[in-house]
């Protein structure tokens, strides 16, 4: 064929589908072989199948405060975490956390000595690393236990007797991980796909690179996309009766010049009633379902549509043109750049389940 056609064939959509085509269409495969199948989206055929759940169980309040060490819980709750996804860890043993702590301490110390240029980053010395298991922060038997990493250090101008201060903390977790996926993993792999960090970027980088070297895994930033944020709006609103939202605050950014930010704060009671009205229609449809059993993505969309509709009725301005950037309630806050804060322990499991799912999706396999 003449050259111009090549550029048509180069369109990425083909590369994604070629493999699924019947073999009789062999010319396609020949194109594929000469162009390389790399999709511009980085989607591999196997991944096209994986989507966020379209329906999920309504958040039950889990009283994890009884199960989880209160000190750990307090740490998890008070901090805003920067999220990443982690591919499965090779030969990771929950029994060897002590030795990992030592190794990581040594690694950080060594790196510190090497990179004098970054000394400004941390005015501390004498790093002490602790890896520990957060008992009870799992949902199913397939979930690996959550691991907490804490780094303490002496402030640079500290007195002798001053206690070490926590300079960095992070965790790796898996809550309600997809069973099929977890079962399909080879024997020596542990799946803790969701990672949260809090502390200096430099230390985050060090910890990540140690994990990468030691367990042959990879890290990547986990953004919370539009749909996940909408899920959080619904999931959190659904909790209002048991634990007050105080307010439901959503921030949109509209792509105009200069950029316009719209913050929409809804009275919690009104948000709850809107949510109920959106749910009510559904419960009439299929009554056999247990009450408050599961939430469908359609209901989430209806809630958002209701909120946007009310906004549009007043301002004649379509929020759909922009993107949801942030959701804040008394139960927690989430930003699209992958920062999350969970303020209420009772709904931590629900939120982490959603995020685990997102992490598994984002993970290149």
């Amino acid at each position, binding site marked *: 064929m*003449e050259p111009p056609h090549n550029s*048509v064939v180069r369109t990425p*959509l083909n590369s994604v589908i070629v493999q699924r085509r019947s073999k009789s269409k062999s010319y396609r495969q020949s194109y594929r072989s000469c162009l390389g199948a790399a999709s511009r989206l980085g989607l591999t055929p196997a991944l*096209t199948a994986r989507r966020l*759940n379209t329906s999920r169980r309504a958040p039950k309040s889990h009283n994890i405060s009884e199960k989880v060490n209160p000190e750990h819980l307090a740490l998890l709750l008070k901090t805003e975490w920067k999220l990443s996804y982690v591919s499965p860890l090779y030969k990771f043993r929950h029994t060897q956390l002590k030795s990992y702590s030592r190794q990581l301490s040594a690694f950080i110390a060594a790196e510190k000595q090497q990179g004098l240029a970054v000394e400004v980053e941390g005015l501390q010395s004498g790093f002490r690393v602790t890896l520990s298991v957060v008992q009870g922060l799992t949902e199913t038997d397939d979930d690996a236990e959550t691991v907490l990493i804490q780094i303490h250090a002496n402030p640079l101008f500290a007195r002798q007797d001053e206690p070490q201060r926590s300079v960095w903390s992070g965790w790796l977790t898996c809550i309600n991980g997809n069973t099929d996926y977890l079962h399909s993993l080879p024997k020596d792999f542990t799946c803790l796909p969701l990672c949260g960090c809090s502390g200096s970027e430099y230390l985050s980088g060090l910890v990540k690179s140690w994990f990468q070297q030691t367990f042959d895994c990879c890290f990547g930033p986990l953004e919370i996309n539009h749909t996940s944020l909408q899920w959080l709006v619904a999931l959190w609103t659904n909790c209002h009766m048991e634990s007050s939202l105080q307010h439901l605050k959503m921030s949109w950014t509209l792509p105009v010049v200069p950029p316009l930010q719209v913050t929409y704060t809804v009275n919690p009671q009104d948000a709850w009633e809107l949510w109920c009205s959106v749910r009510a229609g559904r419960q009439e449809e299929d009554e056999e379902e247990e009450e408050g059993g599961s939430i469908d993505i359609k209901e989430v969309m209806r809630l958002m549509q209701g909120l946007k509709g009310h906004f549009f009725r007043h301002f004649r301005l379509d929020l759909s043109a922009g993107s949801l950037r942030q959701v804040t309630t008394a139960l927690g806050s989430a930003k699209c750049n992958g920062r999350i804060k969970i303020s209420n322990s009772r709904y931590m499991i629900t939120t982490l389940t959603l995020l685990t799912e997102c992490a598994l999706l984002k993970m290149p396999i």
Partner: protein
Amino acid sequence: MSSLKPFSKLPGLNTANILLVESEEQFQQSLADALVEETSVTVNVRLAKSLPLPLENEESRPRIDLVVFIINLTSELSFQSADASLKYLDPGYFLGKVCFLVTNARNASVPTERLDTVRKLAASLHCPLLFAEDQTPDGVTNATERLLTILKVAAGLVPLATALYLSNLTQCTVPLDIDQPSFD
């Protein structure tokens, strides 16, 4: 309801006419500027925010050989607008004279579901789905090249190739398992 028809007018000599539909009216301008640079054929570009096109331009409008819907994935509105415009096209256009051009597909805040919806739409209409980078000059050149290739075929300027034939090769198809949730 006036719909745009593919064969209601005579073609011009060595001329190809393309209609770019984009609700945000941002990428279309740079794309148009690049498209008219083409020297081997005369390319006329018509720009629209949405369909239907205004009646008063009916006379002056040449035969449109290719309709391109530009969809910015970061904006829900962009898709909705394109979707609403489709019904103003004559069915004849869907025989290889329509294509979708998606921008911002790699943006982190874009939910994968949105791309799926566009994919399904393109597949159901047997149209090709292109991806483009709208921020860099390279991206614009790339997108222009691809559109020109399709345009030339659609306008009947490539011997032995027809729009229908090309679209049969390039139309978007949806993976079989797109609707199967992988969890639960």
